[in-house]
């Protein structure tokens, strides 16, 4: 075949094929389709304006609102890569938010918005620290006691809400401290502060997992924990710290949420976030069967979910309906990831080539 157009088509086809093999190809396609839908139905979605030197608009808002989910799903990605799960992230978010809010103190003084009982750095450190402790607790139960991850984190899911309410004494604690709300609402060089937090954590995690052997170790635990241990990977230690880091991620996310709404609500902060986070990780292309993961994909996945939520707001459907859409997406994606469908698709691939 020396037909130049044909060879070009073949080359293009091969290029597309290799591109579509890339892990974050499909998440990108989904995101692009969703943005296209918004472009066609309501162009307002894309307007970005500059006000007081800050960027404003739906797109910026989507990114800002997605920040907590992005951070949580980064941690969860690593847990899922070890073939584990952490369903306590929402509760840990509530705990860290509650801790920080209580340390700042919910006192309201007329006309003042700079009142805090403790230094800000201490409050933030305490919030993240307690989240780390609860993450380590999960890690201890999974790695050293040997509980199934779903059960170990289920315990914290149940008890964690109670702990959060215990800390806030069942109240919604309002934060009247302006510097703290900077984390969730502030701007730096025109961009929301939360972007920088996401970027910093993503960079840190990428460096840790891709520039060191840690990522490989995590994947090897996900594929076969016994084999990993026999090849000298300190499986338990790594498992322990993966859960601990997920706790930290949830803690940071909890601080952002508490800062964003200027209050801590033990009952509702981070409620049902665990499914969103799992969905983000799965949409991003990380396999639920463990053994391979992509952090960038999970961040994209979180972005897709937030875009979906915002899109549904814009179409005027009741926001609760997003639950149905998300559930169906989880069903479809997990079915597509299954071996049965994969072998089915793989069997059809060569057949298509043969026809051509």
């Amino acid at each position, binding site marked *: 075949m020396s037909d130049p157009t044909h060879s070009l088509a073949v080359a293009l086809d091969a290029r597309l094929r290799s591109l579509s093999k890339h892990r974050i190809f499909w998440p990108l396609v989904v995101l692009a389709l969703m943005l296209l839908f918004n472009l066609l139905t309501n162009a307002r979605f894309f307007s970005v304006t500059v006000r007081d030197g800050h960027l404003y608009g739906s797109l910026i808002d989507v990114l800002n609102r997605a920040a907590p989910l992005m951070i949580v799903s980064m941690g969860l990605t690593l847990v899922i890569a070890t073939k584990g799960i952490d369903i306590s992230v929402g509760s840990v978010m509530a705990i860290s938010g509650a801790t920080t809010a209580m340390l700042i103190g919910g006192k309201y003084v007329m006309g003042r918005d700079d009142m805090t009982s403790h230094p800000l750095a201490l409050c933030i450190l305490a919030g993240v620290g307690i989240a780390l402790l609860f993450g380590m607790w999960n890690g201890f139960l999974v790695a050293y006691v*040997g509980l199934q991850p779903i059960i*170990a984190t289920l315990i*914290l899911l*149940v008890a964690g809400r109670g702990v959060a*309410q*215990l800390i806030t004494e069942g109240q919604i604690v309002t934060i009247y401290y302006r510097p703290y709300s900077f984390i969730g609402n502030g701007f730096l060089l025109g961009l929301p502060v939360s972007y920088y937090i996401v970027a910093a954590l993503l960079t840190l995690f990428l460096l840790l997992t891709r520039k060191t052997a840690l990522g490989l170790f995590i994947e090897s635990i996900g594929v076969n924990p016994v084999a990993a241990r026999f090849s000298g990977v300190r499986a338990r230690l790594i498992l322990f710290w993966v859960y601990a880091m997920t706790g930290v991620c949830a803690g940071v996310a909890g601080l952002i949420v508490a800062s964003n709404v200027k209050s801590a609500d033990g009952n509702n902060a981070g409620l049902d976030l665990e499914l969103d986070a799992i969905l983000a990780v799965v949409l991003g292309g990380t396999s639920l069967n463990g053994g391979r993961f992509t952090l960038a994909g999970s961040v994209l996945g979180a972005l897709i979910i937030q875009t979906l939520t915002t899109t549904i707001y814009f179409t005027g459907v*009741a926001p*609760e309906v997003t639950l149905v859409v998300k559930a169906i997406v989880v069903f479809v994606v997990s079915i597509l990831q299954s071996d049965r469908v994969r072998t089915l698709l793989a069997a059809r691939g060569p057949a298509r080539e043969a026809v051509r």
Partner: protein
Amino acid sequence: MTPKVASLGRTLRFNARLLPIAVTIGLFLVMFGAGSISFDNFLSIQVFLNFFIDNAFLGIAAIGMTFVVVSGGIDLSVGSVIALTTMVSAALVVHHGWGPATTIPLVLAMGAAFGLLHGFIIQYFRVQPFIATLAGQFLARGLCYLISVDSIAIQSERYKAIALYRIPIGGGNEITVNVILLLIMLAVGIYLAHYTRFGRSVYAIGGNEQSALLMGLSVARTKILVYVWSGFCSALAGVCFTFYMLSGYGLHAKGLEMDAIACVVVGGTLLTGGLGYVVGTLLGMLVYSTILSLITFQGSLNSWWTKIVVGLLLLVFCLLQKVFERRQGQRSVSGKARAASHSATSLATRPATAK
């Protein structure tokens, strides 16, 4: 070893299998005793009956969950299937004028269909049970909100008549229709688990799915049926909940799956599957109800303590199971070839000394 010692050993081993249930009964008696000493009016038959009246829906849902856990799976959709049942019932009764005779069979079929969906996805696409049922949980809650975002109160006279009907059982004590339903489901559950082919297959699959398959058991059918049964139980629990609350609401029974799992685990069912008793789950429900009552009687303890105590209870029983498993594992290592089945379990379940 003399025959006498051997038979003694066998008796002890038999007791070891029943140990978790004995622990649960002991825990219940201690807690009930503590309540009776601390609070006036706690030690009465009606307080004990109220455990059943106030938690019948939980018990029924937990009976369904027992089968799922014994088969080695988990069902996180229980609470939201209950909510969906109350919502659909309320919508049919209030908006379409249906009676209980048509509504109840329909919602039961719907619950079973939900379970069928879970079972199918889990069995044919090998999706992990917690993912499939977590998605199902959100689907059911979302469907509630599709019907209505607000709570719908049921004014139907017939529903009210059933809900308020009291059955006197002598001595001035009475029970509700829900309690009868719970006791029927308990009997059906025990029969299914211990006297049918289906029940034995469930235990076999929970013990070792591969060997169950090699033994020629219909693994696929049984695993799907387990989720259908759990969906059915959840829907029946939803019917009870509808009688109990006389309303349909998307936020009903939020997080009830956790309570159901707690009942199952406290009742001595092994979370790794293969071992457990339906009657143990009822005992688990009694322990759970006692905790609720103690916190209510105490008065100054807030409701969030319930969550913490249930979480701690779950933890303690999970740890007990681990200890139990390890001791069995060690015995088999020193004993015969039982080790083969244990070496396949994850690294973490191995005794630390195995290094």
